[in-house]
């Protein structure tokens, strides 16, 4: 039995007087795709940022590959190399081409020789279907293409875990599919992924486990089947009802 690749224990995050989330524990197993759902302002994005140490937690522990990354002696920069992050608003480096966006971590952080970094970056761009856009700048790419470059940039570092923070929320509807498509392929390749999203279709079809968060705590988690069709909590039921109402009812009827 494999131990979890990522383990969050009793995490609490407080901004001033605001409790963002409290006493959250979550295990992520190797190769698992976990989708975190829940209303806005529930602390889902903050949770991802805390796991990546971009935001410090107030209490609790996070373990990555069995090592505590919240320990004072742990190196934040080393940890972030092992955790890929994809942002809602892409956050590509605007002064760099798609290829250089993917390459820069390899050459500046991993210190790979240029030819090797380039080869790896091209491989990752190809993986997200954008090798023909390698020398385009972010300003020359559509939102969906930018986000796929963002995914390639994170993948290039060979992370143990990929975090997706509402990766399609800023996209026009017709561009969402190409990004979800790439993520689906990653899931099938058994990349370990923790995805915050409102895309219920993706959650139902791709997730191994769905975590429902509300008001800073995990209300319920389970397989897509359990959560969508046999939710244990009234609040889960309400949220899912509301969101399916919003995102099209026809799936519901099937």
């Amino acid at each position, binding site marked *: 039995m494999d131990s979890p690749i990522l383990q969050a224990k009793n995490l609490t995050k407080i901004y001033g007087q605001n409790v963002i989330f409290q006493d959250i524990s979550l295990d992520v197993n190797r190769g698992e795709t976990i989708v975190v759902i829940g209303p806005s302002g529930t602390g889902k994005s903050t949770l991802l940022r805390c796991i*990546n140490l*971009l935001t410090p937690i107030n209490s609790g522990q996070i373990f990555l590959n069995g090592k505590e990354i919240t320990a004072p002696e742990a190196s*934040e*920069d*080393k940890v*972030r*190399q092992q*955790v*890929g*992050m994809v*942002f809602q*608003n892409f*956050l*590509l*480096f*605007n*002064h760099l081409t798609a290829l250089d966006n993917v390459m*820069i*971590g390899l050459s*500046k*952080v*991993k210190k790979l020789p240029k030819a090797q970094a380039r080869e790896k970056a091209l491989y990752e761009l190809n993986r997200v279907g954008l090798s023909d856009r390698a020398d385009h*700048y972010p*300003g*020359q790419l559509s939102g969906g293409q930018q986000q796929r470059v963002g995914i390639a*940039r*994170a993948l290039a*570092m060979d992370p143990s875990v990929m975090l997706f923070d509402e990766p399609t929320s800023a996209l026009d509807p017709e561009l969402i599919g190409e990004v979800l498509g790439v993520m689906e392929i990653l899931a099938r390749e058994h990349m370990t992924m923790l995805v915050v999203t409102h895309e219920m279709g993706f959650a139902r079809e791709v997730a191994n486990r769905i975590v429902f968060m509300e008001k800073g705590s995990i209300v319920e988690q389970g397989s897509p089947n359990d959560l969508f069709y046999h939710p244990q909590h009234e609040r889960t039921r309400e949220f899912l009802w509301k969101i399916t109402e919003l995102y099209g009812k026809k799936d519901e009827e099937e």
Partner: protein
Amino acid sequence: MLANFFLYIVQGISITIGVTLVALPAGLLLGLGFALINTYGGPWLKRLSAAYSLLMRGVPPIVLLFILYFILSGNVVNLTPFWAGSIALGIISSAYQMEILRGALLSIGGGQMTAARAVGMTRLQSIQHIILPQALRIAIPPWSNEASIVLKDSSLVYALGVPEVLRRAQQLSATTQQPMLAFGAAALIYFVLVFLVNRGLDALAEKTKLPTQTA
């Protein structure tokens, strides 16, 4: 006779350019340092750099020039008029350049830093490889403005007797009784230099501009 007259003024151009080439880069280096400290430093460094900016922007350049030359030079350090003047102008300019660069750094936004850190870069690497290349691009147009101000302010070192363009024009005006011709020539020289600097920096801004969808 007239040829000699103009030749005398033109010979000052190299000194005018020299003063500018000391003051402007010195101001850039200092200004960049203070801008980085102010943007990314702790509260005390922020206060220190803000105070520096406030002080240096509040003192007329010529006053600092006199302080550096007549008070410090000879007593504390030994500076020729050329160096005292150039350094004083560089210090004044650094405060303005700091504000230009600070604005540029802030306009890049925290997201780029977050993304760079998320890839595993240190703070310093993020600033060096991600923030600065973008901020410097943004800073070129306002910096071009500051460059022409420093170029024109280099005429202030005439007060220390440095034989740059204005000083020479003044001397000729006194000896030949032709102020119109002397100062007119000086004005023309400054205008041409400023024009060239602005055009050069416009070209640099255009060359480093990031391509967008329509381009």
